[in-house]
């Protein structure tokens, strides 16, 4: 279930659907975090107002991103941080590598960061003989198993504790156990040594405050605090959309993010780091480097619909709420960012050429939009991207549907539009369809249709392959209406409504 490609999403999803262990884990995720989130929402007075405000702050920032980004960089530098600008993943990785080389770093610890996942930092560093040790428990499990995260908040959600116990037994020589506390204790013991010997700590960033040059990182375990306090050098990789204008804006986001992500009122720790320490004898690293990374983000600024993707605060609520993610998990998406937000961000980051199936990985039910703490209209974005897939206009990475399918689709929709434009044609069409459907109807429903029918009408074939279709009713409402005695018509109408 790993290192899958987004190009084979359909096949990935089918494989995932057959994985009962995975689907059990996903049910647990949806119900547990979903419930916790609901309870956490009741502890704020005006959740809707908070969402509105958060989105307004993000919109304001993004509309003037140049200004806020410059202010952030200048203020962080004034406090002693060193700012680096990375146009793409390659540049970001090269900067990290250069910083490590210059410091002769041999031991590097890392806290969880989606930005570093996005640029495949570990792979890039491993190629140069440096392996950063992941210190978030979930990420460490994933690293030991040589897998990729399947969720942006709980990366190892797809693994059972039995699998993790077996992994720890194999890789670390720890007696297999069912006790999560024992597994966690082993992680603490072993990772402490890694922290003690590390010369450099690498982290992500949740929010960068323009006004003060402060970076804020949220966590529950304490590994972020160790990563950013113990080693002599701290490198933070930050997507440029993480900037917010004012220090007090943190209030809004610190209310929204933990509640949406894990259903907590506040995560156990927030580290607010402004530059480097003031005096040499103070605690903390001697150097703080912040890498501001574009990697396809500025492109999203060019249209208000795509720009809203940059409001995302990576809480994962849309994954937990998505009926598609709940069935197939994160790996099937074949990309770093899974779920609804992944289906809209990934094609924009790496182009639609290899990700054209992702905007279709949704039933457009809107659950993601409902839970999104910054009110991103993900269904709108999905439709926007689908239009780009069909028109082949996506950033020069034209995705072409087979010509034949295009023509057939166009013809079918023309015919459909034509038939529906006249009541008489519509009525006759329905009558003909009623006759044609007869062989397929049994027990008042249409079961799996024959291969021949499926070939002529692919949508009907696809639908009935997994579920029954409703046949056209023996009489339409209009026909019933006409047949009734005019005096009874009121009763018919109410009867229909009660149906």
């Amino acid at each position, binding site marked *: 279930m790993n290192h899958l490609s987004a190009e084979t999403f359909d096949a990935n999803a089918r494989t995932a659907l057959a994985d009962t262990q995975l689907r059990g884990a996903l049910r647990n995720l949806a119900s547990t975090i979903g419930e916790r989130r609901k309870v956490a929402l009741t502890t704020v007075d005006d959740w809707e107002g908070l969402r509105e*405000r958060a989105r307004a702050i993000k919109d304001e920032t993004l509309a003037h991103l140049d200004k806020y980004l410059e202010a952030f960089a200048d203020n962080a530098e004034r406090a002693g941080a060193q700012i680096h600008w*990375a146009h793409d993943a390659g540049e970001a990785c090269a900067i990290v590598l250069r910083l490590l080389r210059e410091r002769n770093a041999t031991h590097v610890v890392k806290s969880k960061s989606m930005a570093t996942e996005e640029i495949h930092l570990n792979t890039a560093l491993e190629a140069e003989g440096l392996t950063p040790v992941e210190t978030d428990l979930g990420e460490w499990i994933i690293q030991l198993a040589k897998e990729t995260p399947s969720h942006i908040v709980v990366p190892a959600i797809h693994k059972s504790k039995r699998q993790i116990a077996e992994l720890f037994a194999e890789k670390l020589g720890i007696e297999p156990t069912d006790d999560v506390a024992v597994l966690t204790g082993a992680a603490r013991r072993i990772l402490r040594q890694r922290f003690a010997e590390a010369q450099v700590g690498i982290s992500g960033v949740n929010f960068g405050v323009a006004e003060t040059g402060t970076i804020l990182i949220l966590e*529950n375990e304490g590994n972020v605090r160790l990563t950013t306090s113990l080693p002599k050098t701290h490198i933070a990789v930050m997507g440029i959309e993480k900037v917010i204008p004012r*220090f007090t804006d943190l209030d809004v986001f610190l209310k929204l993010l933990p509640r949406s992500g894990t259903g907590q009122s506040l995560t156990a720790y927030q580290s607010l780091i402004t530059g480097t320490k*003031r005096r040499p004898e103070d605690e903390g690293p001697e150097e703080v480097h912040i890498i501001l990374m574009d990697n396809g983000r500025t492109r999203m600024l060019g249209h208000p619909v795509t720009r809203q993707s940059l409001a995302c605060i990576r809480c994962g609520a849309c994954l937990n709420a998505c009926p598609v993610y709940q069935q197939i998990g994160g790996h099937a998406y074949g990309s770093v960012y899974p779920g609804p937000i992944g289906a809209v961000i990934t094609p924009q980051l790496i182009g639609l050429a290899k990700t054209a199936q992702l905007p279709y990985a949704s039933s457009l039910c809107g659950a993601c939009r409902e839970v999104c703490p910054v009110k991103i209209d993900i269904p709108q974005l999905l439709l926007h991207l689908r239009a780009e897939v069909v028109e082949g206009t996506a950033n020069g990475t034209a995705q072409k549907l087979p010509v034949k399918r295009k023509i057939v689709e166009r013809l079918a929709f023309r015919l459909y539009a034509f038939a529906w434009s006249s009541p008489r044609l519509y009525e006759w069409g329905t009558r003909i369809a009623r006759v044609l459907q007869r062989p397929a109807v049994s027990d008042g429903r249409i079961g799996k249709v024959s291969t021949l029918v499926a070939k002529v009408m692919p949508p009907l074939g696809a639908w009935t392959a997994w579920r029954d279709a409703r046949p056209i009713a023996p009489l339409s409402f209009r026909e019933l209406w006409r047949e009734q005695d005019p005096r009874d018509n009121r009763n018919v109408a109410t009867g229909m409504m009660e149906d």
Partner: protein
Amino acid sequence: MAERQQDNAARRVMLASIREQLAASAHFDAVRDEHHLQARVIEETAHIAAVAEPTTGSLVERFQQALEAVSGHFIAASNENDAAQAIQRIIGQMNAQRIAISDSPLVRRIFKQVESDALVLENAGPEALFDCDVGITGAQWALAETGTLVLESEHERHRLSSLVPMIHIAIVESGRIRQKLGEVLQTLAQEGQEGLSRTVTFITGPSRTSDIELTLAIGVHGPGELYVIVLSGGNVG
């Protein structure tokens, strides 16, 4: 130097790209703004942040409730001697061998009254801290709504002593408790960048993880036990 120039060039390129994209979006934005006025939303929702609301119970009681809800231990102390005795009880129960204390004057004053055979380290470095069982710090603020402690590096060396040992004991004066996060953020922001501590740490309960089957485990990288001693009659900040 070459790298400095490289960074400056990269900065110019990125900012230019941002401006170009925003300019390209101007037309679409104009259409959208006819329907959505962002500035208005920001003004209208300003009341959401940082306003203390009337709630039931005292600040201390609400802090206790919230702290206990995240598995923290609450201890009320009416004077410094009480606080010292509470610390003595905890380190006795835990049979603590090595104790790290921060450079907070309050913590030092209180700890002088603690009788213990344990080895006490002041200003311990990372290596020494790894062997400590207990870390004792103060806290500059506490939040009643979430049971959170706020520690500022300018006031206290807190980063490692509140993190590395398995037990963290924090002493906070009751006058430093605020209802809401927004109140403390506003106070911190008022100091401006010059006054702002280089590291501010928010602590809500002991270290925790749910990374294995969403099962809660306490004390994964940081402390597994958090005791907060609220000292009443302290200075009202």
